[in-house]
């Protein structure tokens, strides 16, 4: 029993860290769904591409096990590089795979998204010969450093992940609520045609949504690379499923819901491991999802906030 209790603080820390990454990814799902009513199943793979982009920058700026420039600079470059790469990728995917199908049936873009997901995964597999790439996080962030709090060790890497996520989420929340682009996004999500009639260039709004959502996936990719200390081509699939779950759990289309859903999912996954074997952590997550949806079919925040995105 005492073996169970000592795990609790650390598992909470694990859950919050992972939850923040899920939340960033869930935001991308929710934003696209809010604006287009479409599930972008390629989102997880965009995240994987972001993780690889981060690794690419990392290996460019390190030589033989030591950084060639300041560590903070490398971290910043990884985030910027990955965000730029995924934002561009998001725009390209929207233009090539989704926009031509926007007027068609609602299922067509869904299939197209699955196709994009498979293409991205296979391209990554071929380019890396299927091998995992190591990221020596300890070169950038000292491994031992961090806070020890009531039996849990909170490394600097974890603090960075949580800090960055929270910062980005707050910024995004105010973008959507306070800026012109945010207003246009909300209008488009309420009624695309009506928004067009009042002079909103909805195509531009949609592409912006993809760019922002994919950019967030890029940031999340870099963070997961630093956290797992390794990236590989299969990374996107399970993360994508989890983020989608988080988005549904929070009430898909609702941004604050996505954040709450991500955190809750991360915590459920980590705390579930205390009572059940770690192999069952995905089963626990999905059981919790089903239970939550039976109680609140629209998701946690699905009905409370009226204007979506």
């Amino acid at each position, binding site marked *: 029993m005492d*073996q*169970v209790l*000592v*795990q609790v603080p*650390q*598992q909470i820390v*694990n859950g919050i*860290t*992972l939850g923040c990454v899920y939340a960033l990814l869930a935001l991308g799902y929710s934003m696209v769904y809010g604006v287009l009513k479409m599930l972008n199943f390629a989102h997880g793979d965009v995240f994987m591409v972001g993780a690889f982009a981060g690794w690419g920058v990392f290996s460019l700026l390190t030589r033989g*096990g030591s950084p060639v420039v300041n560590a903070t600079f490398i971290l910043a470059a990884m985030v910027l590089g990955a965000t730029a790469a995924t934002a561009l990728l998001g725009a390209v995917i929207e233009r*090539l*795979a989704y926009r*031509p199908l926007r007027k068609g049936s609602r299922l067509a873009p869904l299939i197209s998204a699955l196709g994009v997901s498979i*293409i991205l995964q296979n391209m990554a*597999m*071929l380019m890396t*010969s*299927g*091998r*995992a790439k*190591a990221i*020596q*996080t*300890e070169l950038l962030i000292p*491994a*031992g450093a961090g806070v020890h709090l009531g039996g849990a*060790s909170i*490394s600097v*890497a974890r603090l960075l992940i949580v800090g960055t996520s929270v910062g980005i989420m707050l910024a995004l929340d105010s973008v959507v609520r306070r800026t012109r682009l945010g207003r246009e996004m909300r209008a488009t999500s309420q009624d695309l045609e009506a928004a067009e009639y009042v002079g909103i260039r909805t195509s531009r709004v949609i592409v912006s949504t993809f760019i922002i959502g994919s950019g967030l996936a890029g940031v999340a990719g870099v963070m*997961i690379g630093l*956290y*797992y*200390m*390794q990236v*590989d081509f*299969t*990374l996107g*699939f*399970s993360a994508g499923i989890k983020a989608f779950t988080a988005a549904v759990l929070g009430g898909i289309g609702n941004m604050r819901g996505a954040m709450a859903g991500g955190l809750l999912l991360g915590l459920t*996954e*980590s705390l579930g*491991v*205390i009572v059940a*074997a*770690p*192999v069952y*952590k*995905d089963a626990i997550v999905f059981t919790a999802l089903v239970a939550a949806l039976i109680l609140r079919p629209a998701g946690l925040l699905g009905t409370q906030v009226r204007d979506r995105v």
Partner: protein
Amino acid sequence: MRNRHVMWSLILAALISLIPVGVSGQQRMAPVKIGAAGPFTGDLSKIGLDSLNAIYMAVDEANAEGGVRGRKIEVVVADDSGDPAKAVIVAERLAMDRNVMGVIGPMNSSAVKAALPIYQRVSLVLISQSATNPALTEMGYRVMHRICPRDDAQGPAAAKFIVEVAGARNVYIIDDKSTYGQGLADQVEATLRAAGVTTARGQIAPEDRDFSPILTRVKAAKPDLLYLALPSPSQAAALIKQATGLGLSPKLMGGDGLKERDQLIAGAGGSAQGMWVTAIGRDIKEVPEAREFITRFEGKHGAMSIFSGQSYEATKILIEAMRKAAGDDPAGLSRQKVLEAVHSTRDYRGILGFPVSFDSKGDVVGASIYVFQVQKDDFVQVREYPVETK
């Protein structure tokens, strides 16, 4: 619309160009084919491709000596990604190709287990270079052969080492639910228990990348040794690094699947220092007969992994058996004859450092289990445990 067509045709063209095309022989008789089954893509592709290169090397040498009595030998690449479901599909494909007379692989125990009934149905002999699960040769399939010792030799040897040399009294064992991982973990645990060592078990999934949940459990159990029964060295490397990140520093040990320099030692940064791994074959760098092979292999493909030597040897044994089975009538070669010839292999002297024979179940006779330790950036052999045949 145009854009999309261009994109799709580019993608299609790129994919088509990746399909491996065999070299067509110009001889009168059809070439003899050898199937190479293993994980040539995916997580385990490093060990798979190292093995494939060794198979090609053995086949090229044999072709330079005239193939099988004048019949050219070709390799059919059968990629299973280490996945049992795909192993079944590629086995069916090899079974349908009538010129395939033998198979090297599959490499993963779970893949062998899934594909064995198919190979048995068409009497297609297989020699696995690395599938160590004991059950594989106990199921009564006559086509099954392997040149690596089993986990019921490896597991107890590892446990013996943990008790006698590492001196651990409290061991945490992690496996990945695979036929190999779980089987090896069971063997290690049983022997440790019998020796009075406290053990705890934990499982991860092959697709897991985040090990904080299980490592937090490990931390609570305070083991003095962590044993990893995982087939994937890159997964093990990530796990070890994340353990260091959580402030865990038990002694580390793992099975033969982890003896891979690039992914384990380099991948884990400094965290794998001092880790022990068992191996199902000698470091062939110390075998004089292997020197020529190593020089040629490393000259062409870079650092060799443990299964390169084993794959080369298995291929040589198969070709030798084909030649014996062909006798003076290479055109009359049949799968049944090749199977009998492989089965009766006795004292084949190759590069592994011991004469290879198969017992009636298809298990190798005369092998040893070795323990290696990670020192600086390589594995150093520290112990040898001869295998008692069961």
